[in-house]
């Protein structure tokens, strides 16, 4: 790609054009410089140089690593004939294993209950109670929401914990810590430069469409989140839609602007508050249920937005956790922090 572009630039008619448009180009360069300086918040040129130096050294390290890799590849190619035979055996065994497995599973499927059979074992008294009494006992019009947030709430609490622990694991893997006095370490600067390498600098089309789209996406996500007990959807899908909006905002306006309302602190506080609300609410409800105490949470009229007891607040809590978690995943992947 880059090669082709340099060819194109060196063609004679383009040189003429370049010379003709020189003034505009210079203007463009000036704008780009200003924008980068603004986004980097670099006052002095020396810091800019430092940045460039870091970037260069990072690139240099990468080239070195790639060379080393090539050497290894050549070596591995030369003296691993036995290894290749081994890997071929491994491939064959895996294929045979997979085929045997598919064969047995297909035989099993042939003897499983028929598809869409009303008399299949799955359509038993458990499912009948969920449908017949679900509305009355949980107050949720959407029976699936009633089931996962009331009848089988322990699983769903576990599910939210999975998300939380996954976020913590990704934090362990990817977060780059700052020094104690708050100054960034070399790795962080390198990661930031690397992140900015491909970034479009204030792309007007992107920003314009993001300005239109982000509110709509937010609205849609929040609608799905709040109506989880009335219509399809719920905390999880709503939360991921909201996080998609957040990611779009971040991509079009950059970390600087997104950081004004969403920092690492926001993430930790929001997920902490909603998860602890979730855990405390469910502890209370389990405790009441197991000890035969009335929980005292009104179910409301089915179909109204403020109904079905704890399901609505739990959906909101799950949605917030999901939105924050997905956003932090994205930010961590991009530059190891917010």
């Amino acid at each position, binding site marked *: 790609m880059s090669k082709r572009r340099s060819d194109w630039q060196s063609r004679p008619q383009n040189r003429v054009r370049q010379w003709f448009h020189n003034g505009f180009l210079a203007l463009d360069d000036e704008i780009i410089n200003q924008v980068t300086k603004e986004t980097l918040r670099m006052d002095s040129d020396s810091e800019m140089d430092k940045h460039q130096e870091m970037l260069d050294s990072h690139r240099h390290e990468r080239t070195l690593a790639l060379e080393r890799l090539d050497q290894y590849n050549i070596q591995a190619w030369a003296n691993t004939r036995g290894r290749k035979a081994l890997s071929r055996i491994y491939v064959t065994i895996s294929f045979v294993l997979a085929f045997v497995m598919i064969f*047995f*599973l297909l*035989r*099993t499927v042939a*003897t*499983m*209950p028929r598809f869409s059979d009303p008399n*299949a*074992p*799955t*359509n*038993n*008294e*458990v*499912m009948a*109670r*969920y449908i017949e009494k679900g509305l009355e*006992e949980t107050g949720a019009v959407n029976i699936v929401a009633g089931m996962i947030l*009331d*009848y*089988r*709430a*322990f*699983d769903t*609490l*576990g*599910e939210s*914990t*999975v998300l*939380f*622990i*996954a976020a*913590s*694991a990704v*934090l*362990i*893997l990817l*977060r780059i*810590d700052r020094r104690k006095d708050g100054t960034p370490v070399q790795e962080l600067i390198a990661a930031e430069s690397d992140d900015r390498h491909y970034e479009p600098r204030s792309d007007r089309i992107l920003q314009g469409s993001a300005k239109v789209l982000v509110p709509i996406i937010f609205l849609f996500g929040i609608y799905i989140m709040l109506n989880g007990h009335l219509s399809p959807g719920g905390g999880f899908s709503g939360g991921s839609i909201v996080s998609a909006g957040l990611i779009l905002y971040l991509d079009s306006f950059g970390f600087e602007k997104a950081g004004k309302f969403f920092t690492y602190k926001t993430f*930790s*506080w929001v*997920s*902490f508050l909603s*998860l*602890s609300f979730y*855990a*405390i609410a*469910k*502890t209370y*409800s*389990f*405790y*009441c*249920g*197991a*000890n*035969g105490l009335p*929980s005292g949470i009104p179910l409301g009229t089915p179909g109204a937005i403020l109904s079905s007891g704890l399901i609505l607040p739990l959906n909101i809590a799950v949605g917030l956790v999901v939105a924050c978690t997905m956003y932090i995943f994205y930010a961590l992947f991009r530059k190891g922090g917010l």
Partner: protein
Amino acid sequence: MSIVHNFPFFSILLCMAAGIFTSMFKQKLAKWVTFSVVFAVFTLSAFTLALTLRLDASYPFMMGHFPAPWGNEIRIGRLEALMATGFSGVLLLALIAGFHHSPSFVSEQKTNLYCIMVDLALAAILALIYTNDLFTVYVFIEIMTIASCALVVVRQNGHTLVAITRYMIMHLLGSGLLLLGISMLYGITGHLLMQPLNQAVRQIVQTGNYTGPLTVVIALITSALAIKSAMFPFHVWAPDTYAFAPPLSSAILSGLISKAYIFVLIKFFYRVIGMDVIISQNISQFLFICGSSGMILGSVFAISQRDIRKMIAYSSVAQIGYVYMGLGMGSNAGTEAALFQMLVHAVVKSVLFLATYELINVSGDRKRFHYLHGAGYRNVVAGIVFTVASLSMVGFPFTGGFIVKLNLAVSGMAYGGWMRAFVLVALAVSTLLNAVYFLHTVVSIYRRPSQDIVYPSVVKSPWYAMAAMTVSAVVILYLGVGSQPILDIIKEGLKTLI
């Protein structure tokens, strides 16, 4: 229902809440919260054990407002309470003995994330021990998988990253098989709770409908849990992961987490399917053969290692083999021996990893055997603890390992013909091999160091770590001398597990 009946539920929720709260705490506070939560769980489980000893049967505890086939529930019996007490006690000892090394493997700002992982791993272990619902088993197994991944990967060198990638691939495969098995079982029975499942399975066996899918389901779930607990042919991920993880994480992973998977498998066999079906489907023979070959081959691999941590990791594979051999005998006596081995191995293996780390530490962080010469003199307590744990591994009298081997041999004697001979020969060979490498290690840590190796002086480990290790050694000796009450609890508990 008294307040004590609620204690198992409190302990699970306490661990989960501690995990969530720890994310907001600073390092010191997070550490103290984790310690006190584990201690609290230990106390609560001990109270539960005392309660269940007075009850005749296990009792269900509703997680929600709805009774058995509709809502979710946990079920508490004396075996579950014993396991919870044992595991939380081991975790407490391991944390006290190993947490002061944390600056060497996790950066200061990530210490609280490490604490989250410990809390949630304990929550998952407890939930798996107590739960009575197959889908809850799936969810908490996933939590445990992620927690153990993160526990290993806090040390981010190349070896750990490669080992953990292998680990994740194998475990994801296991999770897939497990979920497929659970969904097939749901498809042919229509239940997820264990007691209704058991009735439905009985019906399937009687009427003969869907027996083919039932066999496939048992095979899928058994192989999934075997992969996750590093049974012999599926152990490929285990040695590297255990060897290159931080010592505390290896202790938790190999000592506790793999045991929780096996406990789930035992519950699946006894409570969901019924042991008679397992025997008639030849699943138990398969486990028996895998277990006994793992016992021997794991030791053979261990002998050929030059890195002491890898040697211990491979011996873990061998010890898991004992558990599976006991389980594969198909008799109650065999399973009791397997359960007792789970407890003994949890204590022994966790203290072995920590003591080894102390020995390596005083030898200038070098793992080859000839650098370890004289390490037993440089850190006397760790040397003694290592010796006691090694003797238990070999099966020396007056240690826990001896009782395990005795029980396995006795339950093997109940069989006639080739099976009896096989059990005895496998036990003898594996004991011999264990003796070869563990006694060799013990001898080498008490050998005179060669003059030309310079050992750097290191900061001594604090007294409480040494005290915790000593307590573990005392527990190992106690399990060898006064084990009868625990064996009785296991025996009675296995009857109420169904």
